C-alpha cells in the first residue's frame, strides 16, 4: 500500500508553511510527520501561533 503524499499547511497569521516532508527541526518535529500527528502544544516557528491557526495549503 502506498502512503498518501505529504501535504503542506499554512499559518493563517503569518503565511509560514509547514511541509510534512520536511518537518520542523527547530520545533523538534521529525521529517515525515503528518500535521495531525504534531503535538497540540506546537507553535508556528515564525510567529508563535497555535496549531489551529494552520490550514491546508497543498495536497
Amino acid at each position, binding site marked *: 500500500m502506498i502512503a498518501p503524499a505529504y501535504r503542506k499547511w*499554512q499559518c*493563517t*497569521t*503569518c*503565511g509560514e*508553511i509547514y511541509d510534512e516532508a520536511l518537518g520542523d527541526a*527547530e520545533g523538534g518535529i521529525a521529517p515525515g510527520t503528518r500535521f495531525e500527528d504534531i503535538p497540540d502544544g506546537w*507553535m508556528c*516557528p*515564525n*510567529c*508563535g*501561533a497555535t496549531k489551529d491557526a494552520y490550514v491546508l495549503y497543498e495536497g
Partner: protein
Amino acid sequence: MSDLTIPPELFAPVWNPASYKHREAVEDIFTTLRRDYPLAKVEVPGYDPHWVVTKYKDVREVSRLDEIFHSGDVSKTPVSKMAEQMLKDYSGGQPHIFRTLVHMDKPDHTEYRNVLKDIFMPQSIATLESSVRETVRGYIDRMAQKTECDFADEFAMLYPLEVICNLIGLPKEHHAIMLRLTQWFLSYADPDLCRPGSKLDDPEHQVRTWQIVYDEIKAYYDPVIADRQAHPRQDVASLIANGKINGKPMDERGMISYFVIASTAGHDTTAATMGNTMWILARNPELLARMKADPKLIPGFVEESIRISTPPMAFIRSATQDYELSGRQIRKGDRLYVSYLSANKDEEVFDDPFAFKPDRTPNRHIGFSYGSHICLGQHLARLEMRVLWEELIPRLESLEMAGEGKWQESEFVCGPKSVPIRYTMK
C-alpha cells in the same frame, strides 16, 4: 540574581532620539542590560515606570501573549506622562494620535488585519516578483550611470517607496509627498528629517506636530478614499477604503491610520534595512566577495540583514492581568518596553550576535516582531530585499564608503539617513 531596578542614568539614553546617531552606544547599553538587568524596571524622571524586556525568550513570550500584554492601552512609544495626557486630549481619549494595526488589540486587530491579510500572504506577494524586479533594475541602471551616490537617500528610501505606492495605487508624482509625510511621522525627532518648524526640544510641540501630520495625511487621503469608494480598482487603496469591520465601514481614524501604516511601515523599515546593509557591505569587501561567489547565500543574507538592522526597535505593551515572567512578577497595569533590537542580539540565542553571518542557521530573528502582530508586509519586504541583492551584487565590481554614514535620530524606527558610497559597476 540580577537587579530588579535599572539605574535611570544607564537607561535614559535609550529613549532619547539623539542617542541613535551613535547607535553602537545604544547597542552597548542593551548588552549591559541583558547581562545585568535582563528583566528589570526603570523609572525615568517624567515617565511612568516600565519593565524593560531585553531577552529573546521574554520578548517572544510577551509579544505572543497579546491578550495578557495589550498593544492599544498605552502609547506604543515612550512618551512622558505630560505628552501622553496631550495625546489623549488630541485623540478623544486614546493614548495615540494614530490608531494603526500596531495600536490595536483583539478583536479589532484581527478584523482590521483581515482587510489586507490575503494580499500580503506569500503566495500573493510571489506574483509581484517580476514587477518588483523590473522596478529595482531601473534604480540599479541609474546607479550604474554614476560612480558615487548616497545609497540611503537616492536608492533605499525610494525603491520600496515606489513599490508600496504602486501597490496602494498612488501616482508617481505623489511618491515624494508620501516620503515626506512618512519621515515627519516616523522620524519626527531627527533634525534633518522632521517636519519643518518642529521644536525638537519641546515635547508639547512634538505631540502637536503628530496631530498636524495626521491632519495632513488625512487631507491627502480623503480624496483617494472618496475616489476608491466611488470607483473601486485593483489596488490596496480600494481594499482599505471599502474595508468592513464587523460588517460596517471603518471609522475615520481607523481608516486614515490604516493608510498610514500601509504607506509608511510599508517602505521605511525596508529602506532602513537596505541602507544599513549597504553600509555593512561597503565596509566589508570579504563579505561582498563571498556574496558574489555564492549567490545562494542571498536569502540568508537578507534574514541576517533584518536581524542586524531591526528598524522598529521596540514597542510598549501593558499588562491586563498579573503574570509571572522569568521569575518576575508583572502586575496588572504595568508597562513593558519590549526591545526587539536587544532580543535580536541576545547572546544566548545568536552566537557572536554582532557579527554579520549570511549562513547563520537557524536565524529565527524577530525583526518582524512575533505573535499576532507580526509584520503584515514581511513577505513583501523579503521579496524587495532579495531581488535587490540578486540584481545588484553581481553588477558591483568594487564598493567602498565615500564618506561618513549617518544614522537617523529616532528612538522608534531607525535606520541610516545617509550612506555615501563609491563603486564601479558592470
